[in-house]
C-alpha cells in the first residue's frame, strides 16, 4: 500500500502541531468556540451529544495491520476500548477528551494516518470499492487513482471553502460496490470501443434530504485527464454552487438547477483551460503510486482442507457460503468479517477484535485490511487453504457471524445515541431487527436483503438505497420511523420509495418482520430476492402487508 513520502510526513506532523496550539489557545480562553469550531472540524473533531467525536480517515478503506493495531491502541488509551467504522470507510471515536486529541492525532501520524478533511466544506475522504485489487470482476485496482485524488484534494488551496462538502468514490470493477452514483463525483473504470481503459465520470449523485442518482457527465475520459477534469468539475461547482442556502448547496442541486448540459458545457470549457496546466507530473506521480499497490506475492498451495472442512463442519460451511467472495487469483478468497453480530452495534469493533483482525491479516492475509462502506472489515487476500484457521480465530473473537448481505447485516448511522444532528435513534432499531431475525432463524432462507437505517434526513445510514430503508424522525417530540422500499446502491442505483406513514419505535420492528415474512409468501421462488420481488410486484402488495388495518378500513 501507499507509503508516506517526506512531504506527506512533514505535512501531517505540521498540521498536528498547529492543532495542538489551537487546542491550547481554546483551553486558555484565547479562542472562543465560534473561532475554534472551524479549526477543530478541519481536523475531524466534532462535538456530539455526550462527548467529542474524532473521525479518522481510512483512505479508500485500506489499512495495514500496524495501523489497525494503532487504532486499537488509541481506543484503549484515549477512548472506551472500541471504535465505530462508518459508511464512508472511516473510524470514529465517540469519547475523546479535547486535551487528548492532539496526542491522538500524533499517534495516528506515527502510522501514516490523520483526520484531515473528514469534516467541513472540503473534498472528503476518497472512498473506493472495498474489494479493490482482489475481486474477480475487476478491470483495474481503483486505489492508485483514489490515492492520486486524495493527494490532489488534500489541502487543495482552491477547494478548502466549497459551498458544501464534496465526496468522491472510485470503482474499478463491473459491479459497483462503492455506491458511485450517490456521490458528488463517481469515477468508474471502463473500456471504450477501442478497448482503451478510461473513466466514466458521474456527477451530482447524493442522498440526504434531496436524494439524487448521479448523472453521467462524461461517458469516457482518457486516464491521463482525470485530475484536470475533476479540478474542472469542482472549480465550476465552487463558483456556481449556491452559498445562500446550505440545503441547496451540494453539487446535486447545482446540476439539477442548471441542467446537465449546462454543467457539461461549463466543465468542458473550464477543462480546456485547466488541462494546459497539467504537464504530466500527475501521471509520473500516478506511476509511482501504482508501484505501491502492486498485487501481493500470491502463493500456490493446496485448498484440500477447505473443501474437507466445508463438508465436515456445517457452521464453517454456512460462514464460508455467506462471508466469502470470489477472488481474482486462483486458490484465493475475499473474506468479509462481519462486525455485526446479532444484537451488537453495527460497525463497532473492540480493541481486542481490531488486534485479532490485524493479526489475521498479517498471518494469512498478505497484511491487508479493508473497511467497507457497509461497516464490515475485509481481508482481501486469503488463501482457501487458510480459511478454516481464519474462521476459527474469528470465532474465538466473536467475529464469525455468517450474515454478510443478509437481513442482520444492517447499515446504521450512530443516530441519536451519539449524533447531535440526529432526530431519532438508529442503533437500537438495528439491534432489535438483527436479534429478532436471529430468533426466527430465517435469515439464510430470506437471502440477500439490505436494510439501511438513518437517524435523520442527512442519510448517513444510506436508507435511500436500502432494499428496505428506515428513516428515524422526530414527530411532535416522539421518535417515528419511515420505511422506504426498493432502494439499490449498486450499478443499478435506485432511490427507494416511501411506503406510507411512519411507525413508532415500538412498532417498527414488528412492521419489518411483517414485511420480510410477507415477502417470503410473495416471492416466485427461493432465488427471487426481496429487491427482485419488489421490482416485479411494485409497492402495493408490500404496502398491504405493512398497513393491514388500513386495507380493512378501505374495504369497509
Amino acid at each position: 500500500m501507499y507509503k508516506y513520502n517526506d512531504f506527506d510526513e512533514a505535512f501531517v506532523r505540521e498540521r498536528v502541531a498547529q492543532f495542538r496550539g489551537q487546542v491550547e489557545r481554546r483551553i486558555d480562553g484565547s479562542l472562543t468556540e465560534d473561532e475554534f469550531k472551524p479549526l477543530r472540524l478541519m481536523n475531524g473533531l466534532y462535538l456530539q451529544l455526550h462527548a467529542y467525536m474524532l473521525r479518522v480517515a481510512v483512505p479508500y478503506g485500506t489499512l495495514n495491520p500496524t495501523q489497525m493495531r494503532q487504532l486499537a491502541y488509541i481506543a484503549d488509551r484515549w477512548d472506551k476500548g472500541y471504535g465505530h467504522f462508518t459508511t464512508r470507510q472511516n473510524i470514529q471515536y465517540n469519547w475523546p477528551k479535547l486535551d487528548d486529541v492532539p496526542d491522538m492525532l500524533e499517534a495516528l501520524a506515527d502510522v501514516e494516518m490523520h483526520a484531515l478533511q473528514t469534516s467541513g466544506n472540503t473534498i472528503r475522504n476518497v472512498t473506493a470499492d472495498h474489494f479493490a485489487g482482489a475481486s474477480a470482476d475487476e478491470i483495474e485496482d481503483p486505489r492508485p487513482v483514489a490515492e492520486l485524488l486524495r493527494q490532489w484534494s488534500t489541502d487543495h488551496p482552491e477547494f478548502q471553502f466549497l459551498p458544501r462538502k464534496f465526496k468522491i468514490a472510485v470503482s474499478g470493477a463491473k459491479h459497483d460496490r462503492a455506491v458511485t452514483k450517490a456521490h458528488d463525483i463517481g469515477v468508474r473504470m471502463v473500456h471504450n470501443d477501442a478497448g482503451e481503459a478510461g473513466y466514466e465520470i458521474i456527477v451530482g449523485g447524493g442522498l440526504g434530504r434531496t436524494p439524487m442518482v448521479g448523472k453521467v457527465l462524461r461517458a469516457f475520459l482518457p486516464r491521463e485527464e482525470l485530475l484536470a477534469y475533476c479540478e474542472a468539475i469542482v472549480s465550476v461547482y465552487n463558483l456556481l454552487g449556491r452559498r445562500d442556502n446550505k440545503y441547496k448547496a451540494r453539487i446535486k442541486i447545482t446540476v439539477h438547477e442548471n441542467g446537465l448540459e449546462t454543467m457539461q458545457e461549463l466543465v468542458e470549457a473550464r477543462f480546456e483551460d485547466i488541462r494546459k496546466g497539467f504537464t504530466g507530473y500527475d501521471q509520473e506521480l500516478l506511476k509511482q503510486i501504482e508501484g505501491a499497490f502492486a498485487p501481493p506475492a500470491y502463493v500456490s498451495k493446496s485448498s484440500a482442507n477447505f473443501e474437507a472442512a466445508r463438508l465436515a463442519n456445517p457452521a464453517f460451511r454456512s460462514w464460508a457460503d455467506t462471508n466469502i467472495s470470489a477472488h481474482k487469483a486462483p486458490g484465493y478468497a475475499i473474506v468479509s468479517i462481519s462486525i455485526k453480530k446479532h444484537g451488537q452495534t453495527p460497525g463497532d469493533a473492540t480493541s481486542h477484535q481490531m488486534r485479532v483482525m490485524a493479526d489475521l491479516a498479517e498471518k494469512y492475509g498478505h497484511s491487508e485490511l479493508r473497511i467497507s462502506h457497509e461497516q464490515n472489515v475485509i481481508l482481501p487476500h486469503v488463501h482457501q487453504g487458510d480459511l478454516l484457521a481464519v474462521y476459527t480465530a474469528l470465532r474465538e473473537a466473536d467475529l464469525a457471524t455468517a450474515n454478510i448481505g443478509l437481513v442482520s447485516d444492517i447499515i446504521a448511522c450512530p443516530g441519536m445515541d451519539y449524533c447531535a444532528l440526529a432526530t431519532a435513534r438508529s442503533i437500537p432499531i438495528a439491534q432489535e431487527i438483527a436479534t429478532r431475525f436471529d430468533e426466527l432463524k430465517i435469515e439464510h432462507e430470506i437471502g440477500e436483503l439490505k436494510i439501511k437505517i438513518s437517524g435523520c434526513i442527512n442519510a448517513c445510514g444510506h436508507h435511500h438505497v436500502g432494499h428496505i430503508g428506515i428513516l428515524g424522525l422526530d414527530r411532535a417530540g416522539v421518535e417515528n420511523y419511515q420505511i422506504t422500499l426498493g432502494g439499490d446502491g449498486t450499478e443499478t442505483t435506485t432511490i427507494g420509495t416511501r411506503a406510507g406513514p411512519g411507525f413508532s419505535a415500538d412498532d417498527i420492528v414488528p412492521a419489518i418482520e411483517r414485511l420480510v415474512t410477507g415477502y417470503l409468501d410473495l416471492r416466485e421462488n427461493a432465488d427471487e430476492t426481496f429487491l427482485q420481488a419488489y421490482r416485479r410486484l411494485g409497492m402495493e402488495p408490500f404496502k398491504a402487508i405493512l398497513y393491514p388495518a388500513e386495507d380493512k378500513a378501505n374495504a369497509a
Partner: protein
Amino acid sequence: MPRAFTPKVITANALIAGDAVWFTADNRWSPKISEAEFITDEAHADLRLLEAQARQDEIAGAYLADAKQGPHGPEATHFREEFRTRGPSNYAHGKQVEL
C-alpha cells in the same frame, strides 16, 4: 401572537470532557439536570443565557432547552434532552454509569 414562553434550563457541553452540563442558579455547571436553574421568565432566560455563553473557557455551545419541574428538580421534556442526561442506549457509558 408570539408563542407563550415555556420553562427552560440552560445546557451546554463541558469544554474538556465534552459531556452535557447544566447551568445552576449559583453559576456552576452541573452534570445533573436536576441541579439546573429552572427558568420561567423569558427576559431572565435571555440574560442568563448571555451570562452562560460568556463562560467560554468552561463550556461550548450553551442553549436554552425546554424543561419541566419534577420531584427532584428540573427534568427534560424532549427525548433528545433526556438522552443527554443519561448517555447512549447501546452501551453502559456516560452519565448513566458515571453519576
